[in-house]
């Protein structure tokens, strides 16, 4: 089947079965491998992308269901103001260990900041609970979100 997808501002025509999850269209058809496979069941959040600005688990979303929604991925997130601030904050305190989950973490964080400019810790915990970091970088993920939001960050959280 043929589908028209607008990904990161570019329209692509893809010939794949409609049941194929968006994740595998991005990775194996369009070569956008920044979006990661972790569990295939929506538990880990490594595959998080934006559909019209809202987070979706691309491992569960059938390509036939995307319709005309605009898709944004980690490769493009730095072009948005919040995405760029998050990337800078991530690097300022070097959030990551293995880094495999971080694309999904940043996509979820970006959607959080879009709906709550100065999120509380409880909001951050709630918004980020769907994203697993196997290495346990959670303290720094929280800190980086606060930094990107312009909130005062206590040094011992960052350390």
């Amino acid at each position, binding site marked *: 089947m043929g589908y028209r997808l607008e990904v990161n501002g570019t329209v692509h025509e893809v010939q*794949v*079965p409609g049941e*194929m*999850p968006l*994740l*595998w269209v991005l*990775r*194996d*058809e369009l*070569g956008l*491998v*920044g*979006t*990661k*496979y*972790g*569990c*295939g*069941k929506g*538990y*880990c959040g*490594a595959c998080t992308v934006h559909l019209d600005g809202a987070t979706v688990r691309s491992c569960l979303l059938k390509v036939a269901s995307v319709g005309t929604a605009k898709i944004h*991925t*980690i*490769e493009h*997130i*730095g072009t948005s103001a919040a995405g760029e601030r*998050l*990337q800078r904050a991530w*690097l300022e305190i*070097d*959030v*990551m*260990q*293995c*880094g*495999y*989950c*971080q*694309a999904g973490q*940043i996509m979820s964080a970006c959607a959080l900041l879009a709906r709550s400019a100065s999120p509380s810790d409880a909001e*951050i*915990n709630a918004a*980020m*609970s769907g*994203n*697993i*970091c*196997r*290495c*346990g*970088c*959670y*303290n*720094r*993920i*929280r800190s980086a979100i606060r930094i990107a939001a312009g909130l005062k960050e206590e040094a*011992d*959280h960052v*350390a």
Partner: protein
Amino acid sequence: MSPEPLSRAPIARRTVLKASLLAGGGFALDALIPLPASALAAARGEPAARAQLSAFVSVAADGTVTIVSKNPEIGQGIKTSLPMIVADELDCDWSQVRITQADLDQARYGEQYAGGSTATTRDWLPMRQTGAAARAMLLAAAAQRWRVSATELTTSRGRIFHRASGRSLGYGAVASAAAAVPPPDLAQVPLKDPSEFTIIGQRVVGTDSARIVRGAPIFGMDTRLPGMLYAVYEVAPAYGGRLVKADVEAARRAPGVRHVIPIVGNGDYDSGLADGVAILASHWWLANEARAQLAVEWNLSAARGHSSSVYRANADAAIAHGPQADLRVDGDAAGQLATAAKRIGARYDYPFIAHAPLEPQNCAARFSDGKLEIWAPTQTPQRGLAALEKALGIAPASVTLHLTRSGGGFGRRLMNDYLIQAAAIARAVPGVPVQLIWSREDDMRRDYYRPGGWHSFEAGVSERGELVAFTDHFVTFGDGKTTARAAGYNTAMPPAGLVPHLRYSQSMMPTVVNTGALRAPGSNALAFASQSFLDEVAYAAGTDLPRLMLSLLGEPREVAAPGGGVPFDTGRARAVIARVLEVSDWAQQPAGSRRAKGFAFYFSHRGYFAEVVEASVAGSDITVHKVWVAGDIGSHIVNPMGAENQVRGAVIDGLAQALAGQAIEFVDGAAQQSNFHDFPLARMPLAPEIEIAWVRSAKPPTGLGEPALPPVIPALTNAIFAATGTRVRSLPIRLHSA
């Protein structure tokens, strides 16, 4: 502000390298012989684009320094920390440094693996020497150009200074000339005084971090080759299963499928080529979907009876029967227990658990004209080569192995089963690049699990509250002679060597399940059992665990480990215990009911760690409020930015093992858990505040991937006891509502 030139001992002596190995390091000295091409270019006076000073260091005319990172990067930060050590002795500015990942070539680079928190210990000195040698070559070239003695020269931030004449130049200006300088003897090259370090000890952002936040293709999963097909490998549902017959016609007709290939494995545990059926397709999802079309008959008879319930019953029987063998006997524990003023005993156990790195196992391979090229996220590439030869008969000389970044390791990628599978599949379709990707379910059900274990402890306490006798009967897995992989005991485990009468003994039962090393292997489980039981002993003796440990440790001294293992320094142990008690304000227990602090200490992988957990219990819910960590990994923390992340990660890893409900259960050799819904990992709300205090001892730095993990679990279970009076003697923790 002018850079302050560094004054250092001059390089007075240069010797050409001999083809020998550095004592104790296994580090190839020929690493410092310049490559013929650059040497030749330098001799002809041609500027080399990047002059190669050694296997590890090259310098471009613009002063850019390229440092090769030799070890697999699995999230432990080695791709940043080892180059930092080189760059510091080279005395360049970190902003000048570019880092490239080495392919597997141990003859050129020395040992290339990620395991056992060994790299910092092993490579600290050789990496310093490598950097210092390259600096010496640059100095020699500058001395030649200026016709002065190298002893008159100093360096700072990638520049060479001749103070007497006020001249200076950047490293790039003499790089190609330096490549022709005979490399110095590594053992003789002068090293910085640690007070002169400019990069070691700084907070440095990870080499790949900027690429990671942009989603750049750097993981094994991201390997893309022209014309590549994606593969899955269907194996038996239970360990030890053998392929009887496979009807593959329906799968062959499935959308996108190009090949379906039954493969008969070698049944070998180490090389890990299990029988299976490979499906190759245009997209991974199509290959994975086609699995439902396979009709495979497996012989699962070998796994019959290998169920968790049977293992538990076997352990009960073994403990009732008494140990099969003694592992360590000091004094007369039985006699002392019989006459002790107080005698206490308890059983502890913990389950099989999975590694579950977030990047599932994967490997890309291409087999053409008898040559195999591999792109693999592996912790042990050299072992992978050996396994390839054993399982598939492919000689190491025919293999090129590229090391990709790994999306986590935790010990899982010490085993190369997925690499062997990818190679076997690629060989079946010569010329076609293949990427094998395991599904999460494959990964969860085909792990080399941290094995479960059972302990039956007894302790005798004197009238004066001293621990006089200690015994542990450990029930584990093995064939009767040898324990299964990572299922062995640690006979140096405290209180061994600290109490006069001690007996460590063992019983084994067989298993068909693959077991293996999980972050802090052995220690991750032994610390829970032994430090929790010692907390029971402390209560029985009318004291607390830190005081009991300090009294057992006694005066600072080295306690030898049986079999020539790493000796245990009681002084370093005392220091981290004292430090954690101080930073956690141990004497002050928290206000409020059912909320308390717990303590534990452990020594593993050369690192000394004491930790305090503050937790509260409401009904069956446990909240960890804060964790304090005091650690001693020697004189220097190479990269505090990465080091603190390792400690926090280890703490959260341990808390998840205890609190999240992690356990793999088996029924007739088949793992019953399959994904993160039934094998949960830590999520953000679980992560408490974690405060880290380093104790610097005058010992060379050691690794940090593992030793911070073991104490956190018993510190938590001991806090739960202090808060509730309920002893946690079994993992994962499952409290019943009060």
